[in-house]
């Protein structure tokens, strides 16, 4: 919360879009701003009505350089926007730096995301220390259609204005904690000697010989990838990483996304009744890739680019001690590591048994 806990005394607030940026179609600006207000009205008792003339509680404008509010903008990048805490006159107003390139997508700066953040200030919120929160002070891109207000922000706004009038109280995503003993993963893959652990809209990046582990937004590296990757594997020979979600997959060549549009898993030879892949790993020695779906697995020949005959088979038959519902898998050295819930099973394919059971986040030196 901001110092002194400033807040609006009324719940029904007005806003006005004073001018437009030439970077975007005015209708897209209207939509972005409207969507930004909805982020907050969905989780609180506040309502926002647009007016077209006169003084609104929240005046929104695009400004350049010194715009006479004692907080000059600094040109491209750097400061993107600012807002004033609730109050009369300039209070509650939001200014966007016109020197930025504003967009409705991932190029430049997404107007919806910045507006939603600034409105948090205009309603009385300060910056958050939670790197996943909307109110975290540095910009990071999230696909607007996938945006859900994080729980930290919901807690903030509800502390000021109370709960939403909606009978079903809204909840939001929380930022995963690296050393949380209850941590689970969506997918794990190797990548040029590093390990990538995927979880929601985040991934951890870890080098086996470095003690530090980095938590990043997936969108920071690959704006066109979705969140919630369900399976991933690396083909070391081709220097490619394959990422799966539902019945689609994306390919990274080195660090770059090969295509912006995903391909269908059915092109790999899966039958139509397979709707998603739980986990995958590539065996460097044989060049075979193993895909895990429910209690069964498929084997794909990377050289022939085709599924091997005789599959699917039961996971239990080949990987004794590994149950169904595998979250993630990868091969490192002579072992295969399977992640199931908060546990990790180190499997030795030579003796065909589990040789060690660990916490899922054992790689993070917690």
């Amino acid at each position: 919360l901001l110092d002194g806990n400033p807040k609006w005394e009324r719940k029904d607030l007005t806003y006005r879009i004073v001018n437009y940026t030439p970077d975007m179609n005015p209708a897209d600006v209207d939509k972005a701003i409207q969507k930004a207000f909805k982020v907050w009205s969905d989780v609180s008792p506040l309502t926002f009505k647009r007016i077209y003339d006169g003084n609104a509680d929240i005046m929104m404008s695009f400004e350049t350089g010194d715009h006479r509010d004692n907080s000059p903008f600094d040109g491209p990048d750097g400061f993107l926007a600012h807002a004033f805490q609730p109050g009369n006159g300039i209070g509650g107003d939001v200014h966007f730096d016109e020197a930025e390139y504003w967009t409705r997508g991932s190029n430049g700066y997404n107007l919806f995301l910045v507006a939603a953040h600034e409105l948090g200030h205009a309603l009385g919120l300060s910056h958050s220390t939670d790197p996943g929160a909307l109110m975290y002070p540095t910009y990071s891109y999230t696909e607007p259609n996938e945006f859900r207000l994080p729980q930290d922000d919901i807690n903030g706004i509800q502390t000021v204005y109370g709960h939403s009038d909606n009978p079903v109280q809204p909840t939001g995503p929380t930022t995963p904690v690296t050393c949380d003993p209850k941590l689970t993963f969506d997918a794990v893959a190797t990548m040029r000697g590093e390990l990538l652990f995927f979880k929601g809209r985040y991934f951890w990046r870890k080098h086996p010989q470095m003690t530090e582990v980095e938590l990043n937004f997936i969108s920071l590296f690959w704006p066109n990838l979705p969140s919630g990757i369900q399976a991933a594997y690396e083909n070391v020979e081709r220097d490619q990483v394959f990422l799966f979600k539902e019945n689609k997959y994306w390919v990274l060549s080195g660090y770059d996304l090969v295509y912006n549009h995903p391909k269908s898993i059915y092109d790999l030879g899966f039958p139509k009744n397979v709707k998603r892949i739980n986990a995958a790993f590539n065996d460097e020695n044989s060049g075979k890739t193993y895909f895990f779906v429910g209690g069964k697995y498929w084997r794909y020949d990377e050289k022939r680019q085709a599924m091997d005959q005789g599959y699917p088979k039961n996971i239990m038959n080949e990987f004794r001690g590994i149950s169904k519902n595998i979250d993630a898998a990868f091969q490192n050295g002579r072992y295969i590591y399977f992640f199931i819930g908060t546990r990790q099973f180190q499997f030795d394919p030579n003796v065909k048994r589990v040789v060690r059971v660990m916490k899922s986040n054992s790689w993070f030196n917690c």
Partner: protein
Amino acid sequence: LPVAPGTEDEDKNIQLVENYLQHFYKLETDKQSRFKSKNIEPLTEKLKEMQAFFGLKVTGKPDVDTLEVMKKPRCGVPDIGQYV
């Protein structure tokens, strides 16, 4: 005369750190004497505050990680208190 390599960058970094801390951490600097020792302590304290907020290693020095965060695009929240 040839300029020692890195000097220009170091000046830019000092400027960046000062501007950043003035904007977001209410660092008060006397423009006349900002490079004098009397201002080193408030700057160090504000830097530590900033580093703690972002979960960086708290050194009080503008190391590479700190400068990287300072260079990221971000928002400012002007305090209306000073205008009324």
